[in-house]
């Protein structure tokens, strides 16, 4: 978070207190919604990270019986090979979380810079807008198919799809901030004082564009998680035997009569992840609007 948050702003050289910007985001997570959302997220991340310690048997440990109904020992029951579905779902979280934690921040930084690039050269800004237009013209799954063809199915193709899909969302937000801030006095003052264009972009306009971008990071995480599921369900995402929420659903739907939890389990995990990010986005949004007095 802090990497993209510059500590200085305004032409007078006054240092913005780091705590002021960051404090608002932390305060947002202290609200009921933010607390539940971030608590849920921490829980899911911890479960994913410590899965090998919590379930030392690993994803392939089999019991004697396949398609056992949910019980205390197997909360989601067992699959066609007698493997515990809950354990496989927890391991699958590793894929979803690692994907969005890597891909979305990359998209946020790149997209924001592309959106703000109009501050350096009008032509460059326009060119990136056209690139965003093309990306937005491609429905998300068609985009995913194109990228899978070029890179080959797997984690990298999914991460790339999430980056490309999310780029315009950040680019448009940053562009909007740029257009509304560009004519303000402090920007003109900086320009008159001879501050270089890249410096104006990063030190003066970027800090004023950050709030909606942080909210969008949380929302794009949801999009990324669902893209993994969609492409893996059709077999173009994560490749078996690695369990991901999508690959589990790919197999689970074939056994939906014998073991409904095989489908319901990964769905529950997907919805929990989406809920966590949604609550965080909501809390951030409310807090940002409040401090801005809007």
């Amino acid at each position: 978070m802090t990497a993209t948050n510059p500590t200085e702003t305004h032409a007078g050289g006054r240092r913005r207190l780091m705590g002021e910007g960051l404090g608002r985001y932390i305060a947002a997570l202290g609200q009921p919604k933010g607390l539940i959302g971030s608590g849920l997220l921490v829980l899911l991340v911890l479960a994913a990270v410590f899965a090998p310690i919590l379930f030392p048997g690993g994803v392939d440990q089999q019991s004697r019986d396949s398609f056992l109904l949910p019980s205390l020992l197997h909360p989601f029951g067992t699959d066609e090979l007698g493997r515990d579905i809950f354990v496989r779902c927890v391991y699958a979280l590793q894929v979803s979380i690692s994907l969005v934690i890597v891909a979305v921040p990359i998209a946020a930084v790149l997209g924001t810079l592309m959106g703000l690039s109009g501050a350096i050269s009008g032509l460059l800004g326009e060119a990136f807008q056209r690139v965003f237009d093309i990306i937005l013209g491609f429905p998300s799954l068609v985009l995913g198919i194109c990228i899978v063809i070029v890179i080959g199915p797997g984690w990298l193709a999914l991460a790339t799809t999430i980056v490309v899909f999310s780029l315009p969302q950040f680019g448009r937000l940053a562009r909007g901030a740029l257009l509304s801030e560009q004519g303000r006095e402090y920007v003109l003052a900086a320009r008159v004082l001879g501050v270089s264009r890249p410096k104006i972009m990063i030190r003066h306009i970027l800090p004023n564009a950050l709030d909606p971008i942080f909210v969008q990071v949380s929302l794009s995480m949801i999009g990324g998680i669902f893209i993994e599921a969609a492409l893996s369900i059709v077999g173009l995402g994560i490749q078996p035997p690695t369990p991901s929420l999508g690959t589990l659903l790919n197999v689970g739907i074939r056994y939906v009569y014998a073991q409904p939890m095989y489908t319901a389990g990964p769905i529950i995990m997907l919805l929990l992840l989406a809920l966590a990010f949604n609550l965080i986005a909501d809390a951030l949004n409310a807090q940002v609007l409040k401090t801005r007095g809007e």
Partner: protein
Amino acid sequence: MFGFLARRLPSVVFMLLATSVIAFLLPRLAGGDPAQTIAGADATAEQVAAIRVELGLDQPVYAQYGRWLGDLLVGDLGTSLITSRPVGQLIMARLGSTLELAIAATVLMVVLGIGLGILAGSIRKGAGRAGLDGAVSVLLATPPHVTGLILILVLGITFNLLPISGEVSVLRDPLVGISLLIMPALALALPQAAMIARLIQARMYQVRQEEFVDLAIAKGVPPRRIVLSHILRNSMGTAVVATGIRVGELLAGAVVIEAIFARNGLGLMAVDAVSSRDYQVVQIVVLGAVVIAVLVHLLSEILLAALDPRIRLQ
């Protein structure tokens, strides 16, 4: 109207050209030598070279693009290198299935989207409003594949109301065909319907602030009539454009939905083609999906301009 079209056309043409370039480059970016693929593993270098000349692969890339685009424009979609059948033929064989799904989903999307939007825009307080807002938010945040799987679990397994997979043409057996179509079409339609509902609701709130609504209230027009003929009528433009924008995403959802519900349509064909490296098929499906999305979007804007002179005269 011509002025409006002249202003919109450049960006549409740009989008179509950019998409065609991407679709053209896809098989080339994927690597592998199509001539080698056709010739087989134990072909001699001369045979491969001969096929390369036959396919025009010895020419510069821009010349290949020109030839490919020219063929497309006269309706020659190319030949699958894997199955050696014309891509047009392969698509026609699957088109019916996807068309049924797309039509059913679009109808549901428009009906549910506008219906929910009007409801959400008319009810302004109380539990009904909160419930409706919550429902729309949840539908909006849940993508088609997750909606589809939940529908299977609820309607197919728990209540055992509908068959969960397979397909029968509606034309051959309407009853079975429709019962198999309901869940996949709903899954595709619900997220987009929620998006349309949200836009209509927001627009209706906005129109409610306008002075002619105050005037209508002041002169004693009944509330129901204000909503229907004053507010709603001025919000329909948003509904038209919102529908146009969502059609592309709705069509793309078919890729996953067809796989989940075991429907043998174009989406499943695209997925199979990617797996079997049949790039000539994939590039046409990709191009087709984006072209249809762009054209439907343009059509909705033309419709809006026809409805609302302010737009076309801007």
